[in-house]
């Protein structure tokens, strides 16, 4: 098979704090092929966002630091690149949208200004042409009256509409990869579905790949082809979406799937929703061994000895568990 679009190998993004080194991302490997949607799931604080921001090098350094690993973008490692080189890749080849549409847009410029800024920069167009392009992009993401709305400020848009603006901005240079960092978490459910649908539509239209970061398993099941499950800065399971839901191998993944509310089963018999006891461990000097051991229902002595490596149990299905 051809080389993947994005290939992250053994990435370690650590943060230096007063209390010591926080290993937010600790040896993550994942890859995305052209036109694929990869889901990255896990609880809050497990390193999903840091992984996503590492790809575009949007991590503040210091305190952040790439301790090890490679981020291969079409075969070229992004880590040694300087800012000027990175700026040619940002937005033009890899675009990102964030969790909080309410705060992701600059309140003092019109949305048209902010979209046109990207177009102007990367497509070398005049301001006027870029503004026309911005209106076109707003139209594409189904914002009514785009020619008028380009002159509006972010506070004149609702949360869902702002996320549409963010998508329009991200797609304005037709990137090959869109990183969506929990794009629907801050929105209410009906809007969530609309935004996911919009992303799907845009993906088909532009043939780009999507790295969809979320903690909602339902979203993953609906939109992705392949899923990476992260826990405490590490990948614990990677599988095609069908295999992940049909045959989850890692106890953490099993727990995540069990914690999805299900209308068909809960009625009557067993109404209580299962949760995984405990919280994500501190990433500050984590204990040796499997990081999930403390919360795992199948824990055994060997689990606390060494970190289990990621091994392939079925084609395309990898698990980091000794079971």
């Amino acid at each position, binding site marked *: 098979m051809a080389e993947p679009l994005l290939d992250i190998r053994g990435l370690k993004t650590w943060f230096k704090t007063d209390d010591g080194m926080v290993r937010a991302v600790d040896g993550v490997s994942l890859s995305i092929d052209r036109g694929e949607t990869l889901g990255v799931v896990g609880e809050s604080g497990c390193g999903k966002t840091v992984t996503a921001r590492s790809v575009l090098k*949007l991590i503040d350094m210091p305190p952040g630091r790439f301790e090890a690993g490679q981020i291969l973008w079409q075969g070229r490692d992004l880590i040694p690149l300087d800012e000027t080189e*990175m*700026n040619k890749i940002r937005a033009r080849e890899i*675009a990102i949208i*964030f969790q909080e549409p309410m705060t*992701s847009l600059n309140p003092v410029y019109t949305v048209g200004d902010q979209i046109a800024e*990207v177009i102007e920069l990367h497509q070398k167009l005049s301001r006027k042409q870029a503004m026309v392009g911005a209106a076109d992009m707003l139209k594409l993401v189904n914002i009514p009256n785009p020619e008028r709305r380009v002159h509006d400020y972010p506070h004149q848009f609702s949360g869902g509409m702002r996320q549409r603006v963010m998508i329009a901005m991200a797609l304005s240079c037709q990137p090959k990869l869109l990183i969506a960092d929990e794009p629907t978490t801050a929105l209410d459910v009906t809007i969530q579905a609309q935004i996911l649908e919009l992303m799907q539509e845009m993906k088909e239209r532009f043939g780009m790949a999507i790295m969809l970061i979320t903690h909602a398993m339902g979203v993953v099941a609906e939109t992705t082809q392949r899923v990476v499950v992260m826990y405490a800065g590490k990948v614990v399971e990677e599988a095609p979406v069908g295999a992940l839901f049909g045959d989850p191998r890692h106890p953490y993944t099993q727990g995540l799937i069990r914690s999805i509310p299900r209308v068909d089963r809960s009625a009557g018999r067993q109404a209580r929703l299962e949760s995984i006891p405990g919280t994500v461990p501190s990433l500050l000097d984590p204990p040796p061994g499997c990081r999930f051991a403390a919360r795992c229902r199948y824990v055994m002595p060997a689990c606390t000895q060494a970190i289990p490596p990621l091994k392939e149990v079925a084609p395309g299905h990898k698990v980091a568990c000794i079971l």
Partner: protein
Amino acid sequence: MIPSLLGISLVLFTVLAMAPGDPFEELATNPAVPPEVRAALRAKFGLDDPVWTRYLHWLVAMIHGDWGFSFVSRMDVDKLILQRLPVTLIVIGSSQIIAMLVALPVGVLAATRPYSLFDQVANTLAFVGFSLPTFFTGLLFILVFSIQLDWLPFVYRANIDATGWQFYWEHIKQSIMPVMVLGLFQGASLVRFVRSSVLDVIKLDYVTTARSKGIGERKVITKHVVRNALIPVVTLVALQLPIVFGGAIVTEQIFRVPGIGSLLISSMLSNDTPVVMAVTFVIACLVVFFNLLADIIYGWLDPRISYR
């Protein structure tokens, strides 16, 4: 604006009326002036009327453009103030410009490199700058630049007998020290404020969005950070304006600048109530006016604030 000015004038007038001191004290101690003359004079200027009638008199006169008559200088107060006001406005205006010119780049640079050597030096200097009162730095400047180095004159002269470029040069030369003393004092506290404001903004999501667009760091700062960071700075500048006027009064006294500050002090010393009243009122008007200006600048900086 109008109601606040009315309130200010009422308070000022009442306080001044209650203050001890009498412009005719000199006449009272002078044995050559008979008491009847003194009483006649007091009656003529309405000094024995109750406060509220005097206030109404003053207000009506003020609306008609009559600012009163200085007991000491024997001339109209408005002429007296108009003579002095431009100097003060120039000194305060240029010191504010200097303060902004220093504080903006230094504060922004310090914030983009927090805890760097530049940041620490800037912070230390800023701390020293606003810890030292203007009357101290003023005297220090005089000592160094006028007495030791003999570069600049330490007394501000209104009547310079030169023409053309020489005239302007002399004016600039004698303005440098008062402007610098005031400007650096203001600038020092502004530096710290700009720095913390920029640090607050630089962490926000939309700055990360801007970075993810691939526009260079420089443009991220100048376009997306500075404008947002300026909004609270405008508030501070407007709020500090009364302090600036206070500082200007002291500085004018030190450098003998013939502005309204020194007019205020000399008229206070000679119990020249109409002048004191008018000068404080003018200062109050200026403060109110600049706050209005700050509100207008808000609207321009931040589209979320609308006046419609």
